[in-house]
């Protein structure tokens, strides 16, 4: 690596500089090794302490209310950013977070529900999703069909709470778009 701004002061690494085979040399290498390992071991807590064990965040699994309290069709749960769909006693939950860059999508209902087939899946579509940020659009079951969104909207697992009978959404558990909870 010849550099034009350093001056060659004529020092070369001595030709004899190899491993010192004496006991001192061994001790020296051993010490260096132990010191290096010791430094890593002693330094580990500094790094590990920065990986949090607890988070002050809203829970990923939460109750949203009794099934009876939801109207037919789409209900937007603002603080959770989820659309809850009800079709008489069948429920499913679709994320309202656009898969492009995370804006909250809006639901644009159709004048009347219509049968749709998207990627070999047939269902009763109540409308479509549109993202105001960059114009992405998603079918009623979540598949992206316009704009820069790269993936369909996520669908979340739903269940009934055994304790209270309320609907429980688990945003940490994704499901397929044909998932339905029948109450």
């Amino acid at each position, binding site marked *: 690596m010849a550099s034009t701004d350093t001056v060659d*002061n004529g*020092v070369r*690494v*001595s030709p*004899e*500089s190899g491993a010192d085979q004496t006991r001192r040399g061994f001790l020296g290498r051993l010490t260096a090794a132990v*010191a290096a390992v*010791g430094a890593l071991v*002693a330094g580990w*807590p*500094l790094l*590990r*302490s*920065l*990986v*949090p*064990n*607890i988070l002050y965040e809203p829970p990923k699994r939460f109750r949203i209310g009794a099934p009876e309290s939801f109207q037919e069709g789409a209900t937007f749960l603002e603080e959770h950013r989820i659309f809850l769909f009800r079709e008489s006693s069948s429920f499913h939950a679709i994320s309202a977070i656009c898969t492009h860059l995370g804006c909250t999508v809006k639901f644009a209902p159709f004048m009347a529900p219509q049968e749709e087939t998207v990627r070999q899946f047939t269902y009763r579509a109540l409308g479509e999703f549109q993202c105001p940020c960059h114009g992405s659009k998603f079918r009623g079951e979540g598949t992206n069909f316009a704009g820069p969104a790269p993936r369909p909207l996520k669908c979340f697992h739903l269940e009934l709470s055994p304790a209270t009978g309320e609907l429980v959404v688990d945003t940490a558990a994704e499901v397929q778009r044909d998932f339905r909870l029948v109450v």
Partner: protein
Amino acid sequence: MSLPNIHDAWQKLIWPWRPESDREAGSGIVANFLLHWFPNRVSLRSLAFSASLYLGTITFIVFLVLTVTGVVLMFLYVPSVERAYWSIKDLDHAVSFGWLLRRLHRISAHLMVALVFLHMFRVFLTGSYKAGEIVRSARPLNWVIGVSLLVLTLLLSFTGYLLPWDQLAFWAITVGTNIAAAVPLVGEAIRQFLLGGTIIGQPTLIRFYVLHCAFLPLVLFAVAAWHMWRIRKDGGLAIVEQDRKEALAREPAPPKKSKTYSVLGIASGTTVQVNDPTTLDESNSVPSTPFLTVRLLLIVLLTVAVSIGLSLVVQAPLEAAANPEVTPNPAKAPWYFLGLQEMVGYSALMGGVIIPTIVILGLMLIPFLDREQKGIGFWFTDGPGRKWGIFGFLYGLVTTVGCLAIAILAPMRDIFPTIESQLFFDLVNPATFLLLLFAGMYFVVLKKTSSTRYAAIATFCAFIIAFVLLTYTGTALRGPNWDFYWPWQAWPAHPMAL
């Protein structure tokens, strides 16, 4: 990459740390960023443990430990009055190794304060603040820089003390800032400037946090760098004066070297090294690499090992959350201020303002009041010096215990119940007695020995003892209501809610 290539690259990296010849040792110092700080060769006298006990080095290493743990803690601590205490509790319980970080940071802080004092004691007792006669060094200036480093260290510790926002923190800072308010005329203004208001609250916390984490460390680092640079410029530790004397004895008047180093033609005059008769050769010195570097590696490893080891056994206390409505009984300042707090118990003006000012100024003036130049680098200078040191310790012991006894057994307001003047009690109290006794001793010893150095040794040793005894009194002998308790006497039980 083939094995010989890796070997070559490795050699290129490590050769300055393992020089094979004196030439390589010298070049290694100049060629390497980390090593260029050191001199080419270091005198055997300086390298010896007894010269400095490596106290300055250890102090700086502890400061680096504080910086590293401090930076990690900055990710985990929240400087808001609502969340500070909570974040410390989480550190203690829910953060992996949080307890270790906290304990290490705290123990290192206390160690650093103790070490700067010990380092100052060493520098004084070896007379290393003296300029020397052979070459005019700037050691007196470096001593003054050192005293300001002491003050900076105390400020760093004080500002950090508030951050846990528990009862200990809150009330210790209440006491400390009220001591500052005792300064005549501007005291209250100083206090409000420190607090960012009239009471201790969020402005205070954020002010202390920024001072503690950003401003003071930067200032301390810069001044410490200047402090160490001055050592290099002055030719090394003060004991090098003995090497110079030896060199002069061999060759009475060395020829003055012609080279004058000027910086961009701006600086003038000659540097210390030009007039230095000492040639550090094979007989009196060794190359810095590897001798000084390995020695420093040893000191670093030992210091860090001891610090971590202490952290495993010494807990970091956390009292109840700060409650401005409830003062704990007793409410004590951090340990290094407890000697002050004891004296402030006699008179806020004398104990909190006048005496500390005299001490700081007095310390700074030492190299200018004592201009003798013999025995530089030797502990206590010489035989008589040792004698006067012991005298100073004993005198300090007797007078401090005496003044404490007066304070405890015969408080001034009991002796003079009819006098109402606050000024009278500010002037007539055990702290003043101590001050006058020490000042008197200085002049008596000076008269007797005609030596400013011996007088200074006696006074300084008395000061050391007084500092230790007053601090001990404030820590262990003062209980609730600042009443006197022997160490074996139990304090009354602390009442609780349930």
